[in-house]
């Protein structure tokens, strides 16, 4: 790890570290020099440390801890090595070495992050130097375990856009043409009385009464009844989501549930069967009967066709990501990269999720039948499938705002358990509830955007930013497990939305190659020949792998755009001068605006 070009740690040099120091280039560097700080962010402590950089060897620096972030600036390197880590990404803090440990830099802290990296800091061994930094870090990284507020609740940032206004369920359903003569909006879940993990506003078949819904709820795990996610504007086929039926070992049946599914089937005016996609592998669905769950049997649901999509559970996904981290961090597996990658199964899982979503989308757009999607509880795999299928079918969701709506609707409002899956502010790093389900979804979206580079309004940075703030706790967007809890905690009143940040500087997240195309189904190819590891996310900390920024193709395109605009401007000027010269003739030359409209018809 030690490299000849980087300075070795010398404990003596840390003695006067708190006083003024002078950098090589002669500028004075005050200890209280500004570190980036958000409104509402307060400094808690700072300390001289050695950052054990896995790529460049030990780096002497000073670490600052605020109630939001860990910030490190090197003192000797030029350019300075900077670490800027929101405390929310910290999953685990361990002490390494003891007071009597031998060996250089063996005493300190090892911090495991949720975003595919580890941070190691070495400290002086004398005087329990790490005790207070360990305590401060633990306290502020895990506020939930210390009865503290998330930073989102003390964040005082101001944005020009209000991200909480992005998603309004009523207007989103209206955009889909709902309610209509076959589908109605119900307020049965107002105050979350029917289902505390669902949103308050639901769309259900017109022909099902609220009373029917209550009876169905009794037969669906956690009362998560089948409700509408999306309706095809032409075929009127719908995507419904729910949880598993409570069939159990004895094979219980529920007439209301059976009738309800039939009403759904009929609602698109077709006589074909209803297609049910159970996201789980067949065996798991069967195994679920033992705990009271199960799937829709053929006898009870003769008008439905059931398919299993073989997507594995949250534990398998967690292990897969762990293996992926092993082969990319800190060093990328040198030999046998491809087989190592294969052995993590990460892309294989991505392939299965995409394949499932393609099947759902294809079924709905072929118009022959409506689709019901569930897994066990309907908040992990189900959310992945419905949101990806919607992304494939509805180009609105491929815009920046549309995607925000999609995440807000299918994930946040329908109770994907962000708090449990991410473990926001919680010190139990080994909690079996944690799983990278949402990350996997974003990876699938990235795969699609990679395959169709002109189909999405947003760029890669948009997706990475979403993932960064999935952990950061700077915004209220992903906090808590359900709409019910968020309402209780007054999240929209007391915190800011991530979409405020993004929508206030949209250009940063915009894909210049985007071509708007309406009503075009977009089917990715779920083949390993096209699926790629998302290097710019998973291996982004490794300076050897980092991709060229900005992307040269994008840059060239932007240059051409600027050139075009420049020509148009100059042409306009020329025409004005020419027109004033020859004031009476104007028939021959085309005005630039006319010309522009010609050009734009290319797409």
């Amino acid at each position, binding site marked *: 790890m030690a490299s000849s070009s980087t300075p070795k740690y010398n404990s003596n040099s840390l003695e006067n570290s708190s006083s003024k120091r002078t950098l090589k280039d002669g500028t004075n560097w005050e200890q209280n020099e500004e570190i980036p700080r958000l409104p509402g962010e307060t400094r808690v402590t700072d300390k001289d440390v050695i950052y054990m950089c896995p790529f460049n060897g030990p780096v002497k620096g000073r670490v600052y801890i605020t109630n939001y972030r860990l910030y490190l600036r090197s003192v000797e390197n030029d350019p300075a090595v900077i670490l800027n880590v929101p405390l929310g990404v910290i999953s685990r803090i361990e002490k390494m070495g003891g007071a009597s440990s031998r060996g250089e830099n063996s005493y300190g802290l090892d911090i495991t992050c949720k975003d595919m990296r580890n941070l190691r800091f070495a400290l002086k061994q004398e005087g329990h130097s790490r005790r207070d930094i360990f305590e401060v870090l633990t306290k502020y990284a895990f506020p939930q375990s210390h009865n503290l507020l998330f930073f989102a609740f003390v964040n005082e940032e101001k944005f020009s856009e209000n991200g909480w206004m992005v998603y309004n369920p009523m207007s989103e359903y209206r955009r889909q043409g709902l309610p209509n003569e076959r589908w109605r909006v119900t307020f049965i879940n107002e105050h979350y009385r029917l289902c505390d993990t669902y949103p308050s506003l639901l769309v259900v078949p017109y022909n099902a009464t609220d009373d029917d819904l209550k009876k169905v709820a009794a037969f669906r*795990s956690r009362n998560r009844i089948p409700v509408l996610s999306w309706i095809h504007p032409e075929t009127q086929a719908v995507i419904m989501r729910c949880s598993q039926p409570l069939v159990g070992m004895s094979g219980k049946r529920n007439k209301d549930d059976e009738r309800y599914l039939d009403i759904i089937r009929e609602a698109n005016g077709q006589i074909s069967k209803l297609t049910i996609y159970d996201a789980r592998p067949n065996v798991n669905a069967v195994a679920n009967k033992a705990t009271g769950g199960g799937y829709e049997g053929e006898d009870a649901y003769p008008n439905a066709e059931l398919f299993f999509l073989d997507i594995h559970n949250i534990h398998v996904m967690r292990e897969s990501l762990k293996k992926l981290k092993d082969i990319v961090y800190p060093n990328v597996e040198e030999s046998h990269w491809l087989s190592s990658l294969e052995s993590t199964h990460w892309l294989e899982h991505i*392939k299965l999720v995409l394949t499932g979503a393609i099947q759902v989308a294809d079924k709905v757009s072929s118009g022959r039948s409506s689709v019901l999607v569930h897994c066990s509880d309907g908040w992990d795999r189900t959310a992945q499938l419905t949101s990806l299928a919607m992304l494939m079918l509805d180009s609105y969701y491929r815009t920046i705002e549309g995607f925000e709506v999609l995440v807000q609707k299918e994930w946040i409002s329908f109770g994907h358990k962000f708090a449990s899956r991410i473990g926001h502010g919680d010190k139990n790093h080994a909690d079996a509830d944690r799983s990278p389900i949402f990350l996997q979804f974003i990876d699938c979206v990235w795969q699609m955007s990679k395959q169709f580079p002109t189909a999405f309004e947003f760029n890669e940075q948009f997706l990475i930013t979403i993932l960064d703030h999935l952990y950061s706790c700077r915004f209220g967007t992903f906090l808590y497990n359900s709409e019910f809890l968020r309402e209780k905690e007054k999240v929209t009143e007391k915190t800011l939305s991530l979409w405020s940040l993004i929508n206030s500087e949209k250009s940063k997240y915009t894909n210049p190659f985007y071509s708007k195309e309406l009503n075009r189904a977009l089917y990715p190819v779920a083949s390993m020949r096209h699926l790629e590891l998302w*290097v710019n996310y998973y291996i982004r900390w490794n300076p050897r792998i980092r991709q060229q920024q900005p992307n040269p193709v994008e840059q060239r395109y932007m240059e051409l755009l600027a050139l075009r605009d420049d020509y148009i401007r100059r042409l306009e000027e020329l025409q004005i001068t020419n027109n004033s010269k020859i004031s009476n003739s104007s028939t021959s*030359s085309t005005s630039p605006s006319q*010309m522009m409209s010609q050009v734009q018809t290319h797409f």
Partner: protein
Amino acid sequence: EIHIKEPIEKEVNPRLLPGELLLCEASTVYKYIQEDGSNRGSYGKLVCTNFKISFLDDDSASDDNEPQFKNKIVGENDITLQCVDQIYGVYDEKKKLLTGQLRKYPENLIIYCKDLRVFNFCLRYTKEEEVKRIVSGIVHHSQTPKLLKRLFLFSYASAAPNNTDGRNQTVMFETLEDWRDELERTKGNVKYKAVTTNEGYRVSEKLPLYFVVPICISEESILKYEGRGIPIWCWSCHNGAALLKMSAFPKEQDDSTSQMQKAFLDGIYKTISKPPYELLKMDDLSSSLPSLQDIQTAYTRFKQLFLIDNSTDFWATDVKWFSLLESTNWLEIIRRVLKKAIEVVECLEIQQTNVLLIEESATDLCCVISSLVQVMMDSYSRTKSGFQSLIQKEWVIGGHGFLDRCNHLHKSEKEEAPVFLLLLNCVWQLVQQYPPAFEFTETYLTVLSDSLYVPIFSTFFFNSQHQRDTNKSGESLKTQSGPFRFLTVWDWSVQFDCKAQAFLNNPLYAEKPKPDKSQRKTSRSKHQRQLSLPLTQAKPSTKRGFFREETDHLIKNILGKRIGKFINSSEEPPNSLREFYDSWHSKPVDYHGLLLPRIDGPEIKVWAQRYLRWIPEAQLHGGGTIATAAKILDLMEEVQSLQVKMDEEHSQAVSGDVHSVPMLRNSARLSSLFPFALLQRQSVKPALPTSTWKDLEDEDDLVKRDDEFVDLSGDML
């Protein structure tokens, strides 16, 4: 079963090139469309000429859908005889390789092509006589040994009117002037000279007529061992360090001979390691790189992954795709070759030593490495004419045995090795990593690789300049006047019209501003990101001692058994290369300066355009890199039309030198296989995996768990 409308009896005749003769034909042949395992297809005539195998579709009349990118010589249903890789016959559902004499004639004929197309013909409706004739004809003409003079090249050259485009900017390296110009261009002329010693091929038939050696090398020494043991100049770097290659002595049994050879080499090394020459480093490529046999084996396995019979095949291999890829070793060979090229670049650029590449014949891996080094270091080699000149210099004139390596004459499979394809694969890695740095596109590389099998150009159909020259002089079949006049592949207008040629030009390429000489110097130092490297490299003591102490040892090894790397040998700091690599990559890229490929595992990719282009399942409708490329092309067109408008407004003449840009109107739905998607899937149905992996043996306990363990049965009470 096949349920297709009755074949229409119609006379369709093949389009023949000058000198092309129809050898045999069969009608009512049914050609399957390679798609989703259905039996869809069309009836037509299958013909075999002395140039190609061709399927003539009975209802091909509807030709209004002219593809935008079309090869004028080889159509979508044409297979040149040299492009045929393997032929299989299907007998009672069993596939059998067809090579020589046939006893039984198959129901189906499957032709695998070297450009990875797969043709599947059904012969069940064809007359038995015709089946016999066509099958044995195809097998005979494409799979059995052939005399050089029977190559279509010669019939074409004697029959075709030769109106070669004289404006070709490619330097052919056939004249002494070409070599002198190259020396001058690279400022190598102070220490190196072009020699005429090989006129009349006095020295060797393997060496080119003219070549370049260090000034101090005498004519006698060149003649002594037929050019073996002589350092031959490839290229000079801006700092004066040169890249050289040398043909090694074969292992000699006789002791006195080997003693003499040793003494000879000793003398040569002494002369060229003295000032003014830089220190010399050697690299015996036959021991530091995979052997030709390894390369051939790897590619044979690799290409098999892309010769897909049907959809089921595609998805079955998809499950274990990455490990299948890895087991071929092809990508690893590409990685090692790129790494070797980086090592050589480091020696030239940082250590400022001359590098001598050594190989038995110096015409295989030497060509790969020297070409790659030049592509990486000399931005001229990244222009189209520069790259073509490079291929002429190092490969065509340099004496790469294309005829044997491609096994064009089916003489010996032992000699076959895709060495040139390896170079194109490596260059492709650079092209996709640094799109703005190259004047040409990946499509250019793909069609160049296809041209290896088009025997109307002499470029890839001889083993050496000598062989071409001797066969050129017309002891012609007929009483033809004068020597044959062969075409060169670099005249792209032979294969592609203007519109199609535009796809070979990279719209992202930012041309280097043409500097005059004084500017050139300044721009160079400005571009040298390597100058800002940490100066830890400067350890002259070890390097200076390197040659003298090691000479004996080295010579011994060159004469007989070979040892590992001389470059990067053990006494050097092992991380100096890594430092060079890391330091270069940590700085912004100058597309006209030095380029180093990224070679970490995730960075080495499969050349999708070349390898996946005929596979319908791999097609992305409206996606792929072509989607962005199309947007750029459209924008360029717009900018150009604005330019024209501006000129008109200025009431100037319409500017003539507007670069031609491909027209891609209505391009939003192009397939990712564009411009090669000739067998486009008509349906927009998504491709769905038919076989997916399910078992996770090692994680059984996890698999069986539920997401959250909650006993739901309690809820019911």
